[in-house]
């Protein structure tokens, strides 16, 4: 008895929207990173569910790549957040606002 594919897509859409909501509302840079991570993992759910559905492993392999790239992205992001903290004494993404329009 397998779960129909629609449920996986609904789950991933929900996770993606939660992540997007977090990106749009959170001001803490670390929460922002976590929200982006949710969005990336929503894509992974899709990829793995559809790999099973279509019966090929392309999606699963891509999900592995996505995870590795997400880790690399977090590493660079944390570095930038660190220099942000050193310069502004804060990790609030709305604090640096010298440049606009």
């Amino acid at each position: 008895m397998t779960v129909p594919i629609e449920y996986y897509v609904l789950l991933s859409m929900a996770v993606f929207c939660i992540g997007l909501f977090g990106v749009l509302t959170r001001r803490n840079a670390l929460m922002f990173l976590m929200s982006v991570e949710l969005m990336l993992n929503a894509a992974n759910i899709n990829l793995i569910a559809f790999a099973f559905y279509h019966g090929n492993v392309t999606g699963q392999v891509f999900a592995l790549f996505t995870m590795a790239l997400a880790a690399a992205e977090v590493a660079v992001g944390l570095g930038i957040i660190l220099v942000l903290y050193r310069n502004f004494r804060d990790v609030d993404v709305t604090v640096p606002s010298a440049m606009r329009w």
Partner: protein
Amino acid sequence: MALVELPDWAALAPVLALAATALVIFVVDGIDPRRTDRQLLAGLAAGGSLFALALAVWFSLAGVGDPGFELFGGQLVVDEMALFFVVVVAVVTALISIASYDYMTEHAYQAEYYSLVLLAATGMATMATANSLVTIFIALELASLPSYALVAILKENRGSVEAGLKYFLIGALSSAIFVYGVSLIYGATGHLQLGAIADVIAGEAEAGAGHAIAEFDGMLGLGVLMVIGGLAFKTASVPFHFWAPDAYEGAPAPISAFLSSASKAAGFVIAFRIFTEAFPIDAMVGIGVDWTVAFVVLAIVTMTVGNFAAATQENVKRMLAYSSVGHAGYALIGLAGLSGANGEFVLAAAMMHLLVYGFMNTGAFLFVALAEHWGVGRTFADYNGLASRAPMASVAMTVFLFSLAGIPPFGGFFSKYFLFVGAIGVGSTAMLVVAAALVVNSALSLYYYSRLVKALWIEEPTIERATLTKPTGIYAAIVVAAVMTVVILPGFGPVADAATAAAAALVA
């Protein structure tokens, strides 16, 4: 009969040369980290990218890209368009490596800087050859991650850190949207390789579990829309252009040049490849997803937003940043016009525009680098009367600005003219509106470009200036870029032929 049969992967030599140079710089720095030989590092970076450039030019002259090598089961492809864009990336990388020698004098992390530049260039060159949504995403990240670090590399400078943060936040968001779009496309078609996706959409092959594509066309449409979003970030087009002015203003000027020329060209090459190889417009209209409409709207909005915002700026670097958004709108015409019989001509014109843009825009940002090196300030008024102190650089800057505006004697005029003729030739009402928008925006852009020319040549300096230094590296890069902007005119025949052949191979 060749004397030596090269293995297939040798077709990737220009990309491999860039990657190898990045690693060699790491090794050189690793041998003696305390002693930084700046000349050696800058020389290696410039030499490596010039070598990659020579290989790419040689390959395209020797016809390696015709009909094109498919490598690793079609994951990468070396065709004429790939070589054309590797040339663009390698040229810009070489120019900014030379200019960075003077600009980054005081910087503590020289080897890291040049390695990151070359790694990002490797990513951009791989984007040019990527032929599957997997390799496209990996190459995209390989180009993006070093770019985030490069924008924020002036760690003590608040502007640079702010720019890096904004660039990273929007970049991370848009790559998440892109990869979700890819997962939806995979769900609908069961494939990630571009050609295989096209086969499923055309109904020539079955998606995985034997279902028809029609069951999933809504999901496919949403996926395509999200992929367009991810590409809009990389090319600095509306709606993901917000990062561009901030990132270009805060970043070191050579990095602004790099991002606004090479990175934008690389973003366009994957856009061209995805939408011609995976989603051919005829098949997509058949299942009710007409993406040219999206690109018509994006092209018009992008060029209008970019040019109007540029016209209101007082800061020169920010003006160039918004003009770069405007130029992304011009290049988008290449995709907007693909539906008609004239599609390949419009696409070729967009490729030519990106090549010319690689010289003129890099040059303009390098002049800003020169001004920052002198410490003259950032606004239009600060540039007043620079021509009397530095006539040669000012002549070069005038060439760049008039070429960006599209004044006849320079390269920028011809690429814009081809875009205009191509857009009219497509024949649909929407494309006529696009062509009209191109003309109106070019006229508007002349206002703010000539404002800077007026400041350089006519206005009296507001303060008394001492003699300005002549940093060799930046001067050399600016002069080369200016000469190329001018001589590309007689050389336009071969360039146009190369672009047309590449576009024809892609559309056919």
